[in-house]
């Protein structure tokens, strides 16, 4: 019964979305207040309806209602509680429901907190948002109904894929969707602005918080997925340039570009047309990502339930949304006159360079991901574009971005003086060179480029510190004055500093783990000592035990350094009895210097066990950097001028009402 109510709520939400996508547009066109206000009511109602529907499905999962086909196919009565809930989005139908729930959540947030947005722009934005909702609700109702019943009712479910029964992967989709779907907000704002034919500084100020939120959520989602791959897949890889990973990475890159270009629109009233284009592209890439994951068109290690008819439906949504928005753009964009004046050496130019690197980087990922498909369509030949391609084509762009980042951030608006900026930054350059040299001596034997990579990462980090200390006049004014200046820095400045520093930290981790990893693979007998990168690892045998819904073979290891015991690790092989599949849980001793990472393999013919041991230097800095980037994004979000729903003040009040 509850499932039927959930289904019914979803149909109602579909009807509401149709009304929301039309009536407010007409109202905004005619200047009628009531139909425009309807957009808010409808957005809140749509959210409540979809929220109810989602709750109904969750109820089905938590209570193991196996008459529902998705519950039967993705749950089991003895699955731990947390994973019963995570099972709601651990399958195609439920994850699409989560997709529209988050879409509706964003709409409701605009309705509830967007009071300072002019009524016409707000009405149009919510209408565009509702068009997306119509498309995806139709997709769910007609191709992927999560409330389908089964008759007869099975006794028990087939269980959730064991690999998905993990906290990081349980949290991964909601964050990823908060990011993916969050980019629908800038998209809707962009399309609404194109309909109105006006983009101004105030517009950029309303768009930026949504972009920040989406970007921060995507950062968390991607980092969680990467961290999960690191400890769960069994050989400590953290990024595979897999189509599904690339699908989330492309919107991330474009969203990062959009964040920066929106600043230029807001502060200098220029780059408007480009920013609108980026907003359209960012969400289009989200749709491409959804298409890649849901269609199964590209072979991926993550291939989820795939069904050609579903793929075609999403492709149609993608073509209509992107095609429509771009047509509107081609028609309206030429009317947007650039206003700001700036010299070739200025922060404006720096941000244009940032946008150039980030968008070309996104294009390269796009080429490497979808290019093989195009080649196959044209020539019939299959090609593989693997890690080697991305290392060659993508990495140089990131190197250029990292080199330019501290310089661009230190340039003033309008007109800058490059020699003067370099004079400020020379300390950062010298310090990063020093750190690179220290690493060259400390970690000899790696690739020759590695110390340069370390120096580059630290150039980004020290660049931030030097820029901050310049801004607070460290050492040039009394300490009290410096502290006062530090406290008075706007939160967006702190956000920028953290985000840039996070970039450097992640780069440091990537260089470290890539350059100096060591490994040992052997058939180890019980009691055998494995020497590896200055450690000695003793294999103490394998013990069998029982988990909540799996059987454990736990390989026990003791790690010594200079004869002293420093850690005992357990590396598990889990056998899930329902699905009859195995997963590995690596035994990891994590530290900021290096991780000791041990994986137990199969029993060997000679009586020993296959044991893979790795030492992974600086691995955790990769995710630490991502975390700091996210913090930076969130801190910027709380800046007074971005605060969602902040009272109307300053410039926003100067925008003429319609």
């Amino acid at each position, binding site marked *: 019964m509850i499932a039927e109510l959930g289904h019914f709520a979803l149909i109602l939400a579909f009807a509401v979305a149709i009304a929301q996508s039309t009536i407010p547009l007409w109202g905004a066109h005619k200047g009628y207040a009531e139909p425009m206000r309807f957009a808010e009511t409808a957005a809140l109602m749509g959210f409540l309806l979809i929220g109810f529907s989602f709750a109904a499905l969750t109820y089905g999962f938590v209570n193991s209602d196996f008459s529902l086909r998705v519950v039967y196919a993705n749950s089991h009565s003895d699955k731990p509680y947390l994973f019963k809930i995570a099972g709601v989005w651990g399958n195609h139908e439920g994850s699409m429901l989560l997709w529209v729930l988050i879409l509706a959540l964003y709409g409701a947030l605009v309705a509830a907190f967007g009071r300072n947005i002019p009524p016409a722009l707000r009405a149009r934005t919510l209408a565009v948002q509702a068009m997306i909702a119509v498309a995806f609700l139709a997709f769910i109702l007609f191709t992927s109904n999560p409330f389908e019943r089964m008759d007869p009712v099975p006794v028990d479910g087939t269980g959730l894929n064991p690999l998905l029964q993990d906290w990081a992967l349980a949290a991964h989709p909601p964050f990823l969707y908060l990011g993916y779907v969050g980019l629908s907000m800038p998209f809707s704002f962009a399309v609404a602005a194109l309909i109105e034919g006006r983009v101004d500084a105030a517009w950029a100020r309303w768009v930026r918080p949504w972009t920040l939120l989406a970007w921060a959520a995507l950062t968390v989602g991607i980092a969680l997925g990467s961290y999960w791959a690191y400890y769960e897949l069994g050989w400590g890889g953290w990024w595979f340039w897999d189509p599904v990973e690339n699908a989330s990475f492309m919107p991330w890159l474009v969203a990062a570009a959009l964040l920066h270009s929106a600043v230029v629109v807001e502060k200098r009233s220029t780059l408007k047309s480009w920013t609108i284009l980026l907003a359209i592209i960012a969400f289009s890439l989200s749709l491409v990502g959804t298409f890649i994951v849901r269609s199964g068109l590209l072979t991926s290690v993550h291939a989820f339930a795939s069904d050609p008819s579903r793929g075609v439906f999403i492709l149609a949504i993608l073509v209509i949304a992107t095609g429509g928005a771009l047509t509107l753009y081609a028609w309206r964009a030429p009317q947007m006159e650039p206003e700001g004046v700036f010299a070739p050496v200025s922060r404006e130019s720096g941000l244009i360079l940032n946008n150039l690197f980030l968008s070309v980087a996104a294009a390269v990922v796009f080429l490497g991901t979808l290019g093989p498909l195009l080649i196959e369509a044209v020539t019939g030949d*299959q090609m593989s574009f693997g890690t080697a391609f991305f290392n060659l084509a993508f990495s140089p762009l990131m190197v250029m971005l990292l080199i330019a980042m501290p310089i661009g951030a230190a340039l003033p608006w309008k007109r800058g003086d490059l020699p003067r900026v370099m004079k400020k930054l020379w300390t950062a350059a010298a310090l990063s060179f020093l750190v690179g040299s220290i690493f060259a001596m400390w970690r000899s034997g790696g690739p020759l480029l590695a110390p340069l990579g370390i120096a580059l990462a630290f150039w980004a980090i020290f660049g931030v510190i030097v820029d901050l200390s310049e801004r607070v006049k460290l050492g040039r004014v009394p300490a009290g004055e410096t502290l006062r200046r530090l406290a008075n820095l706007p939160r967006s400045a702190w956000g920028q500093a953290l985000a840039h520093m996070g970039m450097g930290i992640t780069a440091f981790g990537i260089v470290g783990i890539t350059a100096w990893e060591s490994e040992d693979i052997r058939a180890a007998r019980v009691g055998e000592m494995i020497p590896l990168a200055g450690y000695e690892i003793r294999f103490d045998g394998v013990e069998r035990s029982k988990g909540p819904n799996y059987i454990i073979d736990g390989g026990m290891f003791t790690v010594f350094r200079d004869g002293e015991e420093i850690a005992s690790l357990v590396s598990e092989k889990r056998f899930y009895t329902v699905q009859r599949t195995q997963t590995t849980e690596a035994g990891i001793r994590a530290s900021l210097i290096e991780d000791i990472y041990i994986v137990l393999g199969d029993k060997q013919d000679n009586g020993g066990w296959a044991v893979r041991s790795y030492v992974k230097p600086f691995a955790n800095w990769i995710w630490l950097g991502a975390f700091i980037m996210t913090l930076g994004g969130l801190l910027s979000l709380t800046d007074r001028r971005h605060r969602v729903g902040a009272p109307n003040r300053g410039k926003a009040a100067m925008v003429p009402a319609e």
Partner: protein
Amino acid sequence: MLAMSSPVHAVEPSEILSDPALESRARELSKGLRCLVCRNENIDESDADLAKDLRILVRERLVAGDTDQEILDYAQSRYGDYVLLKPPLNAKTILLWFGGPILLIGGGIVAWRQIATRPVPPTKVPPLTEAERARLRDLGIEADREA
């Protein structure tokens, strides 16, 4: 559903060559060869039987004294371009290989023209007139001394 429902075992201890130099070459080569029956993995990471066969084949050829390039050529002749994770540069792939640089240069030219044709702000801001200063003082603002 995720395809990798079994733990990834990749290189088995029994496959490893006793010569560490050859073995490290084998590992590098394996990372550049695609497991043809897998979703999207190289043969070094895959636990499929076919990947294992190919790993052993690579090692046999190394022991027989083949160069890295000879082994890649051999794999390509036997399984086609698809097996190479770093695709060869030819008419079909040239746009993908050079897409990034072309876009970077093209985008750079467009961006530069935008920047260069932009009116430049005046270097010297004309000093405030006494009337303007007076007006600022009335508003309670001391005219900026640094300007």
